[in-house]
């Protein structure tokens, strides 16, 4: 792509072909205004695509195998560890990292902070895709994925926490799709849908906040069903939901910083001046949000320790893991974010965001897999589970990139669609 841009190529950002009256066809839009041959050429030039090709060559047969031979073939079929990487990584890590959608909606639409507008759509997209692929991971993990709608329409168990998660994730997915209708409308040249969404955006945003508060919290509350199985340092009946909710705030925001950084590095050609010039300022603004969520999280984690009087566990081996998690993944990014804000260094905030994202992943995996069954034995997931998880995650990246290439997320549409 860099090479094409250097040669004077301009990717589509209008409805009408420049210097003519003809609108771009859907085919033009699909290939960014390149001919199919040119498009394929740039695909092959990109080394990242070769990595993807290798992942798919190994991963797709194994993913297909999981559905032909069953979960018993793809996993250890553990009765003691019924949840492995598919949910541990795909649901419990991806959902908090996708909280950016409701955070940016709240900032821009609800608090009226129009100065964050350039990154709002990236936040929404990060949310939508994260949730969508969390559902994909869930479908890989469910014993009978074709029964996914059973909790909605066939047999309801409304008193269960997972019931709430199912309904909220489903509803929230529709909210996020609605929130991204304007971007799609611009590309497709629709007028009415965009207007309609604009008229209900406040309602959508508030719905997003409610649904996110509850299902982010509910993912934590799922583990309150296993009080004896999750290590006490990662378990708190009273605060589990708040730990998960509060950490999803800086998790989602940090992921947004990470994604915007990756876009800045690898998709520079697609970012317009409005995005690129504002990014440092916005990154520091988001960093402020992160630091506030981090300090709240740190305090409530300590409150939970005091509430259940678990200080003694800090001296055990599990305590060391806990102290590492809190120091390296909460206190360190908190300090780095604060330094970045005070010294006005966006680069430092980006570094802190990478650590915070790693921290969320570590915290969720600690809760779901590593400290789970701490009194029984540790289990390392089957290698096929790793391969499948990487394959699905690679697909997430592919779809993410494909959307960023096309929809007006990183750039502003130069059209008349209002």
């Amino acid at each position: 792509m860099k090479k094409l841009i250097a040669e004077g190529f301009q990717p589509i950002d209008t409805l009408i072909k420049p210097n003519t009256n003809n609108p771009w066809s859907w085919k033009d839009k699909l290939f960014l205004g390149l001919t199919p041959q040119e498009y394929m050429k740039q695909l092959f030039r990109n080394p990242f695509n070769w990595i993807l090709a290798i992942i798919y060559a190994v991963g797709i047969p194994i993913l297909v195998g999981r559905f032909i031979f069953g979960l018993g073939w793809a996993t250890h079929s553990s009765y003691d560890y019924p949840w492995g990487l598919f949910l541990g990584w795909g649901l419990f890590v991806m959902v908090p990292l996708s909280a950016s959608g409701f955070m940016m909606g709240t900032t821009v639409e609800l608090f009226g902070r129009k100065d964050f507008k350039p990154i709002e759509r990236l936040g929404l997209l990060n949310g939508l895709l994260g949730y969508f692929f969390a559902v994909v991971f869930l479908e890989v993990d469910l014993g009978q994925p074709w029964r996914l709608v059973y909790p909605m329409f066939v047999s309801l168990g409304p008193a269960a926490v997972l019931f709430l998660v199912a309904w909220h994730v489903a509803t929230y997915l529709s909210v996020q799709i609605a929130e991204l209708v304007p971007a799609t409308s611009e590309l497709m040249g629709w007028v009415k849908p965009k207007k309609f969404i604009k008229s209900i955006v406040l309602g959508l945003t508030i719905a997003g906040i409610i649904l996110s508060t509850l299902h982010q919290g509910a993912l934590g509350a799922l583990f309150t069903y296993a009080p004896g199985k999750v290590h006490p340092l990662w378990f708190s009946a009273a605060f589990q939901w708040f730990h998960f909710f509060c950490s999803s705030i800086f998790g989602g925001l940090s992921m947004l910083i990470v994604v915007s950084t990756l876009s800045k590095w690898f998709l520079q050609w697609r970012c317009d001046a409005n995005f690129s010039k504002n990014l440092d300022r916005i990154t520091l603004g988001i960093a402020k949000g992160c630091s506030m969520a981090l300090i709240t999280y740190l305090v409530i984690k300590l409150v939970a320790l005091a509430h259940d009087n678990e200080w003694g566990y800090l001296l055990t081996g599990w305590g060391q893991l806990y102290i590492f998690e809190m120091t390296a993944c909460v206190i360190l990014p908190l300090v780095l974010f604060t330094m970045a804000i005070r010294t006005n260094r966006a680069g430092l905030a980006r570094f802190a965001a990478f650590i915070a994202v790693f921290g969320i992943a570590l915290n969720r995996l600690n809760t779901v897999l590593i400290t789970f069954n701490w009194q029984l034995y540790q289990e390392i997931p089957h290698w096929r589970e790793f391969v499948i998880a990487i394959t699905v995650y690679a697909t997430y990246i592919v779809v993410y990139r494909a959307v960023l290439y096309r929809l007006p997320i990183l750039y502003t549409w130069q059209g008349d669609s209002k």
Partner: protein
Amino acid sequence: MKKMNRRNFIKGSLAGGIATAAAAGKAKKASAAGGDFGGYPDSMGVLVDLTKCVGCRTCEAACNKEQGLPEPDKPFDDLSVFDEHRHGGLPRRTTEKAYTVVNRYNVEGREHPLFRKFQCNHCNEPACLTSCFVNAYTKTPEGAVIYNPKVCVGCRTCMIACPFYVPAYSYSSAINPVVKKCIMCYDTRLKFGRPPACVESCPQGVMTFGKRKDLIALAHEKIGGNPGKYVEHLYGEREVGGTSWMYLSDVPFDKIGFDMHLGKEPIISYVKDFLAIVPMVLCIWPALFTGFHLLSTRKQANKEESPKA
């Protein structure tokens, strides 16, 4: 007027409405029983006197036959299974092929090893039931916790929730994997007032079938009537809200694989903290955040209004 409100309410937030109803339902259940369901009054149960068990595995064979389970890897008269260890050096557990297993424990200071039968304990307030989002589990008035494989999605939250690590899953099936666990022979026996197959098959009379409340009285009589024979604890009387299967032992329970840290509260008690916030968030957030919106855009609104004044 009332109808109108209700319709608007449902229209307003379908998911929200259901979640509220869920939370309200839970709250109602809790208050009706003073925070503790405590089980059906005439529920049946089984009292297991572990001191009598000789480890013949007849009950395992009876269960296998009654439930139509696949043939085991080793025949039921093969006692070498007691030396088997699964991951982590743990003794055998229930699997998709075995709803009950007997394990041997060599306890220091006891002349003979002690054998422990293990199966679903059929809790009064089962964690599997309360965690299931498709209502696949039912606690019958007779005391059994039964499972409906026709609605199970296979999320396996019940396996996460069960404090006794009982439910197994038929991972081997790609088309129709389901949860596999003891149902106290509900369909074939309990429903008709007959004891489960394992109880009836036992040549040593280890297990006593009867009304749970009678069994509790009987157990305490046994403990009181034979001073020094049993440890003074009836396992299952109060653990996680009480279970239909209860155990007597002559060695401390934690030495023979019983979890002594489960507490008396049913598992759902730990979840109630979260369930309580659900209706609050649903009711308070809309007004609160609309208020925030009005506050944070006030300056702009004032600016737009001022020329009129």
